């Protein structure tokens, strides 16, 4: 189906370029197994949930070699409401096996947004088919707050069990909440919807580099929404069908990509987040979903062992990043058994802030810095798992809330070190 692909900027048929209400952007790269289902879901959402609205599906592909484009095109029933475009993926992104999400996502999103802007769309949704297939009704649930409640950015809120998304609950959510004072539980969830107003604003900004990660692009979009004063919401989407990643990425790789994207945005928006105060909840939409059944228990001992190994071997590196009081606490933890080890919330928040500052001041190579966090993260995860062992959904929420409060209370520490880094010399 390569002939059907319309290169961005090369011009499209006048019928397709006509004004629409909704643009559903589907990003793929070698996603033949999911592409057809996602396109069918998108079509169904348009026809069943928004029957009176004009919509178009924009399928952006980074040059798949597995027939993704052909599968997607074959799945589209209404060819007049379906357009395929191409976006650039750099060779390095194609060969890196541990890339999470669609490679070159910033380019893909930009191509979809350009198509949506050309059609004067009122709402545009980004669906990352490389991460997985959205749950039934998820596309409509993400779009509804934009079309019916005049929201500008709608983040997904998938239902997950208590051990799911430890990086998200332990770093991404509390970090973004503390910095930008908005309680968006899954701020870089891969899929999101934007209003026409926000879309035009984003198109006028400087975009992330084409070689940035998938999370860089997500973080960039939501942080611009925060700093631009747009109306943010989240939509409950139920459980997510996550596509298995082959090969399964290393924890250190996931952590480096997630934190790298947060730190880039933190650096870029320093003038904004230093002025924000106490966090506020954002409106939530979508149906109620029952919490998932309790997952199989997780043994924290191997993670605690990884923490100890890391502390013993990387102490010289930690001395360049962390203050003596934190090192003392870590030393005390390294002497405890897995069942006794407890990573204090305040300590964890300060560790993340110290790494963010070291990333900013380039105390050491940034790849080394993010890699060195993995053992500490595993230590925190061991403590987290232990604390959630007998927790029900309400207790899990309380634990997450307590962690977020710790991040918020330590924000002053971050700001003072950010403004006067020379006053502290580890």
């Amino acid at each position, binding site marked *: 189906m390569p002939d059907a692909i319309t290169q961005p900027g090369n011009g499209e048929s006048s019928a397709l370029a006509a004004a629409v209400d909704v643009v559903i952007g589907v990003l793929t790269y070698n996603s033949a197994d999911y592409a057809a289902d996602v396109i069918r879901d998108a079509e169904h959402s348009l026809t069943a949930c928004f029957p009176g609205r004009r919509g178009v599906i924009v399928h952006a592909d980074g040059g798949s070699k597995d027939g993704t484009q052909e599968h997607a095109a074959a799945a589209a029933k209404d060819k007049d409401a379906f357009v395929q475009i191409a976006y650039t993926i750099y060779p390095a992104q194609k060969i890196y096996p541990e890339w*999470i999400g669609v490679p070159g996502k910033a380019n893909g999103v930009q191509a979809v947004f350009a198509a949506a802007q050309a059609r004067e769309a009122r709402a545009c949704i980004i669906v990352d088919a490389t991460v997985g297939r959205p749950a039934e009704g998820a596309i409509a649930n993400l779009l509804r707050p934009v079309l019916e409640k005049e929201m500008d950015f709608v983040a997904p809120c998938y239902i*997950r069990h208590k*051990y*799911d*998304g*430890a*990086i*998200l609950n332990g770093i991404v959510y509390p970090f973004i909440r503390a910095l930008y004072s908005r309680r968006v539980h899954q701020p870089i969830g891969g899929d999101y919807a934007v209003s026409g107003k926000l879309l035009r604003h984003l198109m006028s900004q400087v975009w992330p580099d084409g070689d940035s990660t998938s999370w860089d692009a997500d973080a960039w979009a939501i942080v611009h929404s925060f700093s631009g004063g747009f109306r943010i919401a989240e939509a409950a989407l139920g459980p997510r069908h*996550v596509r298995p990643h082959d090969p*399964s990425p*290393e*924890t*250190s790789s*996931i*952590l480096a990509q997630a934190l790298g994207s947060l730190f880039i945005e933190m650096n870029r928006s320093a003038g904004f987040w230093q002025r924000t105060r106490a966090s506020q909840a954002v409106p939530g939409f979508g149906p109620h979903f029952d919490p998932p059944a309790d*997952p*199989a228990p*997780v*043994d924290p*001992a*191997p*993670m605690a*062992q*990884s923490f100890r*190994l*890391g502390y013993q*071997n*990387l102490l010289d*590196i930690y001395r*360049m990043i962390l203050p003596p009081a934190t090192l003392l606490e870590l030393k005390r933890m390294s002497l405890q058994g897995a069942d006794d080890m407890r990573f204090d919330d305040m300590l964890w928040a300060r560790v993340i802030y110290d790494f963010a500052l070291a990333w900013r*001041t*380039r*105390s*050491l*190579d940034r*790849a*080394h810095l993010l*890699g*060195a966090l*993995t*053992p500490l993260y*595993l230590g925190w*995860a061991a403590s987290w*798992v232990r604390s959630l062992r007998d927790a029900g959904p309400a207790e899990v929420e309380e634990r997450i809330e307590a962690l977020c409060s710790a991040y918020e209370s330590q924000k002053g520490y971050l700001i003072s070190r950010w403004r006067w880094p*020379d006053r502290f010399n580890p």
Partner: protein
Amino acid sequence: MSDSLNEMLRQTMARITSALADFLPGLLAFFVILLLTTVVAFTLRIIIRRALQRMAFDSRVDQWGLSAVNEWSPANSPTLLIAQAAFLSVLLVGLLLAVSALDTQLTSQLIVELFNYLPHVAAAIFILLAGSLISRFLARSVLIGAVNLQIQSAKLLSVGVKWLVITLAVAMALDHLRIGGAVVQISFAILFGGIVLALALAVGLGSKEMVRQSWERQSDRIDREPEEQLHHL
């Protein structure tokens, strides 16, 4: 008899006096040049040090990610390192100029030889510096990577990589300086082979458990490791 002795002594004294008269201006020039270059070197050192201190050069070196330079610097200050290097360079050039003022054939040859040798010295210093920086970077990469792979002998691996690169750099530097000749090359080959063998043994013994688990996992004989049940994403 005594007349001829007196004549010989007189001629000898005349020769010595003449030689001294020829040599003394050169010697004077030697000391004057040395004095002047010392003054210039001191002044330059003070100017460079103050200028670099004013622009907070030490902090900037840290910000540029070159904190390794601190360890090579006197008092952990790259500013002092640069100032001292400039001081010694000017002093060395002054010394060479001063020696040339003595105007002897030997010193001229020495200077020519020295100037011919200087590019080799510069190249050797560059190789050593680059080797040191690369070895530290690679050692840290290996250390962090090995720790994250939970290899118990991570530090051993890291130190092995560090010394491997340093050994390579030293051998290359000595080769550039034309010191040792074949002895250096043979020693390097033996040492390099020894380090590689030691590393192979260390990796083999240190990570055999990991390799076994990896194979077992490949053939689905054991469940995923407990921490993998925790979904980080």
